[in-house]
């Protein structure tokens, strides 16, 4: 690297008058308007509160957040994958895998060893996907769909198809992750919050986060900037599998027993939460904060509709409408126009 500093090159400044008023600062109102998703969130919180006065009861809120935590933890990881311009449809199936594995190992080698062993196994799967998508550049949709199926087969083989349950449910401390409270807040919420803030900072504030955005925004430009695109994608999948393992731990600890299909179908819910939060499927845009909002929206929709007591099919229909309205409002606020400019 050259010894020269910028000062030695002598950047002589070329003074020019900046035309006054040509560039004004963004106004507060505009900044608010960009957070359309928050407005949407607020709107239907109000709606549900009117429909059922128990909706905003602290217990209920705590309950919703707690049961959203598992989905939420997975969504955090998937946010990284989506930001890097890829998809991950294998998270549901992988979560079933980690839940089953940790429950099985709990009785065989004890929780202290079972937890790291399960994390290691899950993250190996994540690394495999990361290798296929990151280094071999295979299409992530198909790879992860294939892994969805393959990991399901793996789980069935591992468990012999049976439910997996901890023998001594009363006597194990393993339930702390899923069932106990700390300073009055359920531990799953704390774990979710901790992970969300850590990953949020990782994404927003560190060089690694910057690289994830760059790779998802324009992989070629990232490569031309000396970023190892393969490695970034690889780590995103490993990170995602770490989140999945955490979710599996929470799940296992919450119910101390599980079906083989505990995570089935979660992949689309997770993806919906991430997209609802405003991340672009094309990669390169989205934040952890928004994903958390997306997770909460989904959780509160489900809970709110149950509280209102709609038939389940009416819930489907209302969810449809809310998802589209929320995203519509979000982008309409960003572009400042209700209707799209598509010709």
């Amino acid at each position, binding site marked *: 690297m050259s010894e020269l500093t910028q000062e030695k090159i002598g950047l002589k400044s070329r003074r020019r008058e900046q035309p006054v008023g040509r560039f004004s600062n963004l106004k507060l109102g505009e900044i608010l308007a960009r957070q359309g998703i928050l407005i949407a969130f607020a709107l239907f919180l109000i709606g549900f509160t009117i429909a*059922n006065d*128990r909706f905003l*009861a602290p*217990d*209920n809120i705590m*309950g919703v957040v707690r*049961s959203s935590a*598992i989905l939420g933890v997975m969504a955090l990881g998937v946010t990284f994958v989506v930001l890097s311009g890829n998809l991950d449809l294998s998270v549901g199936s992988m979560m079933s895998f980690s839940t089953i594995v940790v429950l099985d190992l709990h009785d065989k080698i004890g929780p202290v060893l079972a937890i790291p062993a399960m994390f290691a196994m899950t993250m190996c799967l994540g690394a495999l996907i990361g290798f296929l998508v990151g280094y071999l550049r295979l299409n992530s949709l198909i790879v992860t769909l294939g892994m969805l199926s393959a990991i*399901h087969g793996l789980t*069935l083989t591992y468990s*012999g*198809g*049976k*439910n997996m*349950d901890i023998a001594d*449910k*009363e006597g194990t401390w393993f339930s702390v992750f899923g*069932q106990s409270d700390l300073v009055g807040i359920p531990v799953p919420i704390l774990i979710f919050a901790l992970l969300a803030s850590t990953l949020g900072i990782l994404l927003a504030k560190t060089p690694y986060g910057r690289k994830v955005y760059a790779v998802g925004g324009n992989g070629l430009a990232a490569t031309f900037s000396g970023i190892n695109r393969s490695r970034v994608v690889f780590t995103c999948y490993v990170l995602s599998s770490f989140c999945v393992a955490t979710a599996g731990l929470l*799940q296992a600890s*919450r*119910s101390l*027993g*599980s*079906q*083989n*299909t*505990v995570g*089935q179908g979660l992949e689309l819910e997770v993806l919906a939460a991430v997209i609802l939060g405003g991340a672009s499927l094309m990669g390169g845009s989205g934040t952890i904060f928004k994903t958390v909002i997306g997770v909460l929206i989904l959780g509160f929709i*489900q*809970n709110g509709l*149950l*509280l209102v*007591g709609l038939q*389940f*099919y009416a819930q489907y229909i209302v969810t449809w409408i809310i998802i589209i309205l929320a995203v519509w409002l979000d982008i309409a606020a960003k572009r400042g126009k209700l209707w799209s400019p598509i010709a």
Partner: protein
Amino acid sequence: ADTMKIGISQNNVGVDSYQTTYEKAFISAADANADVETVVLDAGGDVARQIAQIEDLIQQEVDAIIIWPTNGEAVIPAVRKASKAGIPVIVTNSNIAEQGFDFVKSFSGPDNITQGARSAEIMCDKFKDMGIADKAKIVQISGQPGYTTAIERAQGFEERLPEVCPNVTLVETQPGDWNREKSQKVMEAFLVKYDDIDGVYAGDDNMGVGALNAAKASGRDGIIFVGATNFSVGYEAMERGEYWGSIYQSPVDDAEAALQTAVDVLAGKEVPFLNYFDTPKITQDNMSNYSKPVF
């Protein structure tokens, strides 16, 4: 004797441990019988795939076909094809619609409607013991929408309950999709919404235990949980005294009955057309008579 080639198309094996245990039991029963060779297929819950599998089995010229219908009516034309090809068809676990009876030799499996009815009786009897049969309020968590088993169990329960306990009210039903986690979420909402819940009927023990977990987490005691299809989790919860009762149904019996029926049909024996195997009530009171389910 010549070996019998028997093909089976199951509903959706990966989805719960009942079906997986069934598959395992079926394979080992077939292995135990030197005269039987099997092709075990899984429709993954998809009617189209199941019909394709029946067509494939016909094309492979198996001697008999066992089918666990994904849809009791949609498979009728495919079953007719098998029957036209001279291949006897045995239906297992949940029956096909009457229109198709002409094309099948026998049905073997549990009676879902009776199961639902029995669950209602278990629930009612318990309420009577507790002296709240006049005012109890219950909620139902049903199986995956669209599945025959889910529909029939709910139907049996809902029809029988008013007959035995006319004053018990079923305040709300929501599906739990055979999924413990989903059921737990549904129950959490019920608990917020209703201050007064005396009983929960769940379409299977997995969901029942999910609901139980929700109640435990929110510290609500005194709720009577009744399920159907006693899983080992349910059995354990009964041992702990947290879960009241369920319906004892063994996938091993189910699988063995189906295979035996097929073998009998091929051997030219007379078999009854409706071949229900018994699924008794199991509660904390009589559970010592039953061994813990293996699944």
